[in-house]
């Protein structure tokens, strides 16, 4: 991971001091809530149903074991002993007190963790592929560029009061695990015909009330020009994005209203004025950032070590290995996904004890590094294959070895009405019930890869629009109802799901999902045709018939 130096640490500490002063002025009455609200949001502090919620940044989803332990400490000391990992690679604490926040931030600052700009109308956490740096076939580590963007966007004086929030995501793999097409700016790192490294730049992706898939604004921007080009986009948005209506204020609306060609022209005109200015990224600067990223000294290890051969007789271990262990760019190593979706549990939560234990496991088995994915699971990115059996035993004891990664019970859900003041309906109990219905691993494997996404309201923090099955909580006559969509996807073939019919009540949702799955099993062309491909082939109609025949 990136090693903060004294310069980075100074900035984080200065931010904590500033926030401490702002809290003091709020509590003395010198600042009204109207003046304070945007300031606290810019430090990740929300007010939710029961309490304040604190959203802490995990830049591009990378943590050291020391940092994970400190996250556990905050959960224990200032909250109720657990945290929630989000769809933007951040962590949220749900019960934190305003008076405690400056101290919590100071504790986090000591290990280089901050909460800057995790909310507010500014540029948010730059997210990436949780397998960055270790995925086979990756062009280069996108996190170098994510870190350059993080620094560039942090406390940017021109862009701290945008019309609305602004989210970046970056990938360097053909298979997009970072969902770049549903971000305000999506970046695909690749090499052009001349072998130069650069970015396809997409703009205007986003979900919520008016979902859009991002459009390519420029097929190739050289690495050297990344920051100046981003600045041009942000400047056009800052000046022309709507400020009269919060539902029309995202850049996706501006791009839609101008059209991508006109928008691209505006950005190009602005960019040409500044492209050779102070934002040029010369090789030396990029190399300096690259040099601060830690890469393990991998050993030369066999792909099939004895430990693995011996453990192959253990059916439970094998079930987990086949599900949660992924190919690594280095022979003899593996990427291990840690499922935070236990049967009956709230998706994406981890207790302080689990976090501490996982930090120890990371030290022993993963060179002290952990990753956070937008699907609300964690990963250990550098595990030697010979260590898999021992690691599994330890994870299993901690409840972190549910072999359901990418399967029907690996559900992405927002906190919903149990926590969130924006929600219309609950999402977590729906997820819990679904994990119980599909708890059988044979069944789940039979079904195959199937992403269910649940959002408690149209703000779509659960990314329901791009779920293979999407579930959206709405309110009807004071009761919780849910709209169901199918056929969405968030990867390089991103598309929005299609509504199958009228909203169904809370008590029916799990039955409806079972009906959809049964329809899929009956209709699929062969066992390895994925759910999302069957929907593409057949459309919504056969599923609608099945679900609404008796409703």
């Amino acid at each position: 991971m990136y090693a903060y130096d004294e310069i980075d640490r100074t900035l984080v500490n200065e931010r904590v001091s500033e926030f401490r002063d702002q809290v003091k002025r709020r509590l003395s009455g010198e600042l009204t809530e109207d003046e304070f609200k945007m300031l606290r949001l810019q430090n990740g502090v929300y007010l939710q149903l029961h309490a304040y919620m604190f959203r802490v940044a995990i830049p591009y989803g990378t943590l050291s074991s020391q940092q994970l332990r400190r996250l556990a400490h905050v959960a224990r000391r200032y909250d109720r002993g657990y945290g929630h990992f989000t769809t933007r690679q951040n962590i949220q604490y749900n019960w934190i007190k305003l008076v405690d926040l400056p101290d919590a931030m100071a504790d986090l600052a000591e290990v280089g963790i901050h909460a800057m700009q995790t909310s507010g109308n500014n540029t948010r956490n730059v997210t990436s592929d949780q397998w960055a740096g270790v995925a086979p076939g990756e062009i280069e580590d996108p996190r170098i560029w994510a870190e350059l963007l993080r620094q560039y966007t942090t406390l940017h004086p021109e862009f701290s009061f945008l019309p609305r929030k602004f989210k970046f995501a970056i990938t360097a793999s053909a298979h997009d695990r970072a969902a770049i097409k549903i971000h305000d700016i999506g970046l695909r790192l690749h090499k052009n015909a001349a072998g130069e490294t650069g970015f396809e730049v997409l703009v205007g992706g986003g979900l919520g009330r008016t979902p859009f898939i991002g459009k390519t604004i420029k097929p190739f921007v050289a690495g050297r020009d990344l920051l100046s080009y981003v600045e041009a986009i942000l400047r056009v948005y800052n000046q022309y994005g709507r400020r009269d209506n919060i539902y029309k204020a995202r850049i996706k609306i501006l791009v839609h209203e101008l059209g991508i060609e006109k928008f691209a022209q505006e950005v190009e005109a602005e960019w040409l004025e500044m492209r050779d200015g102070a934002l040029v990224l010369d090789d030396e600067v990029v190399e300096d950032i690259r040099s601060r990223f830690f890469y393990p000294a991998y050993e030369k290890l066999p792909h099939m070590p004895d430990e693995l051969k011996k453990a192959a007789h253990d059916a439970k271990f094998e079930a987990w290995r086949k599900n949660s262990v992924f190919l690594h760019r280095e022979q003899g190593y593996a990427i291990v996904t840690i499922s935070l979706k236990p049967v009956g549990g709230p998706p994406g939560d981890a207790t302080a004890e689990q976090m501490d234990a996982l930090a120890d496991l990371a030290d022993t088995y993963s060179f002290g590094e952990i990753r956070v994915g937008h699907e609300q699971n964690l990963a250990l990115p550098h595990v030697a294959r010979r260590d898999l059996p021992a690691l599994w035993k330890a994870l299993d004891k901690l409840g972190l070895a549910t072999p359901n990664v990418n399967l029907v019970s690996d559900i992405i859900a927002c906190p919903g009405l149990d926590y969130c003041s924006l929600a219309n309906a609950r999402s977590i109990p729906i997820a819990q019930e679904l994990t119980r219905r599909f708890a059988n691993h044979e069944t789940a494997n039979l079904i195959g890869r199937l992403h269910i996404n649940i959002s408690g309201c149209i703000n779509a923090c659960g990314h329901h629009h791009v779920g293979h099955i999407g579930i959206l909580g709405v309110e009807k006559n004071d009761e919780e109802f849910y709209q169901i969509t199918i056929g969405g996807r968030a990867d390089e073939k991103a598309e929005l799901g299609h509504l199958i019919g009228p909203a169904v009540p809370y008590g029916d949702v799990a039955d409806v999902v079972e009906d959809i799955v049964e329809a899929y099993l009956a209709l699929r062309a062969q066992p390895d045709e994925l759910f999302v491909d069957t929907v593409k082939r057949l459309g919504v109609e056969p599923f609608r018939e099945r679900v609404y025949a008796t409703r």
Partner: protein
Amino acid sequence: MTSPLQQKIKITGPSIVTANRTSDGAVIYRTAAKDWSTELGRAAIVRAADEARALLAESVADDLGAVGPYIAPVELSDGAVKPGNLREQIRLSGVTIGLPVQA
């Protein structure tokens, strides 16, 4: 964004004013004694739009003590005050799911 005082106030039954406490975010209810309580039983109950507006106005004026006051419905049964919808039920009794650890 319209201030809560400028929004049209419609009361469909007995209602209260609720908010979150500034220092720690705790759920609080406006009492008849011009202060706040964490107990729903001590909330001032209003039954008409202008009563509600007045209660809301004095609550909003306490910018130091409370964040985001708004009017919420209640149910009265057997002389006890109960939350009038699921959202207020959750605010009063907490999340409907088991927490990963005992609070």
